[in-house]
């Protein structure tokens, strides 16, 4: 793989990571008190959980078919996101005693169930309703896809060029370098995307989701800068 193709793939991966954050139901501090829809924590935490799981599943497929690496990353991250949202819902329903409900729409577009009547007055919804759950799975998969793609691109180039940096690099060194660079890329893109949504979002049905083009452009610029320095790290430039 040429170094230019690696940079392009890293930018595509960065956009996928940034777009993934727009799908994930991030509730922030209000959701932690069950007064807003979403998982009760910030983007960085959700991205860390889902993204790192995706990278571990992607790295476990290192040196295999690239499609296998990317799909493994996507499934790992989506699974972690799903588990997080499911356990959060268990706590909201059986611990706090609230019904998963969205405040942004009147009817759930997937199940068709009415939302407004179940929302506690004065709150912004509770828990993770079906539409947010599905959106979160898509977001996790997109984030993991980005992680897997950047991992594949970096390790594929590093396999050939990392000998410029150190003599006889072991395969483990290359895997760790690719994983570390992907993690750096992941966090930068997820936080830039999180600035774009202003911290909290319910999923693809949220009006804030329309800001995604601006977020994609921001991800392209941020990823391009990171990608150039990753090219130095793998010894390609």
């Amino acid at each position, binding site marked *: 793989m040429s170094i230019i193709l690696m940079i392009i793939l890293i930018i595509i991966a960065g956009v996928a990571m940034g777009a993934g954050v727009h799908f994930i139901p991030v509730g*922030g*501090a209000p959701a932690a008190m069950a007064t807003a829809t979403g998982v009760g924590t*910030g*983007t*960085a*935490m959700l*991205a*860390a959980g889902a993204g790192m799981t995706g990278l571990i599943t992607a790295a476990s497929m290192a040196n295999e078919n690239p499609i296998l690496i990317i799909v493994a990353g996507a499934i790992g991250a989506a699974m972690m996101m799903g588990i997080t949202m499911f356990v959060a819902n268990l706590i909201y329903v059986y611990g706090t005693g609230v019904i998963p409900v969205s405040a942004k729409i009147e009817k759930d577009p997937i199940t068709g169930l009415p939302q407004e009547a179940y929302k506690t007055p004065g709150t912004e919804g509770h828990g993770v309703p079906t539409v947010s759950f599905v959106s979160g799975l898509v977001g996790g998969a997109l984030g993991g896809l980005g992680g897997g793609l950047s991992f594949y691109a970096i390790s594929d180039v590093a396999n050939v060029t990392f000998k*410029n*940096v*150190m*003599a006889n*690099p*072991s395969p*483990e*060194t290359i895997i*760790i*370098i690719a*994983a*570390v*660079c992907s*993690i*750096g*890329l*992941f*966090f*930068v893109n*997820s*936080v*830039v995307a*999180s*600035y*774009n949504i*202003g*911290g909290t979002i319910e999923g693809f049905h949220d009006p804030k989701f329309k800001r995604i083009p*601006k*977020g994609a*452009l*921001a991800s392209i*610029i*941020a990823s391009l*800068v*990171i990608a150039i*320095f*990753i090219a*130095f*790290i793998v*010894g390609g430039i």
Partner: protein
Amino acid sequence: MADSFVTNENSMLILGIVGSLILICLSGVSSTFGPLFAALGAVCAILWGANAISRVASYGLGTGVPSIGYMSLGGGIVSSLSGLIIAERFLSKSLGAVTAEYVGPIIALIIGLLIGLIIAVVAKKLIGMKIPVMIRCTAELGGAAALSIIGFSVAIAGSLNLTDILNTVVLTGMIGLLFILNTMAIQHPYNACLGPNEDPVRTFKCACHTAFLSMTVVGICAVLNLGYVSLPIIVLGLICWIISFRSFVNASYEDASEVKWSGLWPEVEQ
């Protein structure tokens, strides 16, 4: 004196850049105390980063304080590795291998500042964040993150040599630990102390305690590679951690209107 030092952003900038670069470069002077100097250099960088985060996050980021910490370390980990690698590959012939090793942290600092600057410009101009100090503080955070990673990496590897760092920090996976450890040390102080009566001196004391606690953990990680040489890092880190943690707890007690032990819940018959 301490108040004006902690609240003045330029003095913290000098502590971060000059203090930590000098201490990291001093690691080449002595093989016994070199790792200790490098770890102290990383402590300076963490104090600088914690100060920068408290200035930018006091405007309210909307995403929580940890997010900007993770972002800066995400950029910092790329900039620290690329800085060391660029110095080794492109400058070792013209400057000599040993001088190039000393230039590595400076290049990493510049790359860290640059990545932080570009991300901040994107966040401010494109996304429309309305924080006046955003650009300066995010750039500072990128630099602090890069220096803190390099300082602790040198403390674990025992030298500024790139191959040593790759073999002892990257290959062993310690770099992942440093990523989370430094993120926590930089973002926790303001995250723990924020609020209407946030006191910069108290936040600084909290930053000292997270930095020295991280230094102790790094000292323990370095035992595998350095043996007894890592002992000064652990001992000094522990002593300074106890001092700074005590002073942080005392400052919290002084600033609280009253501290009382409420006792356990009374046992009431249902």
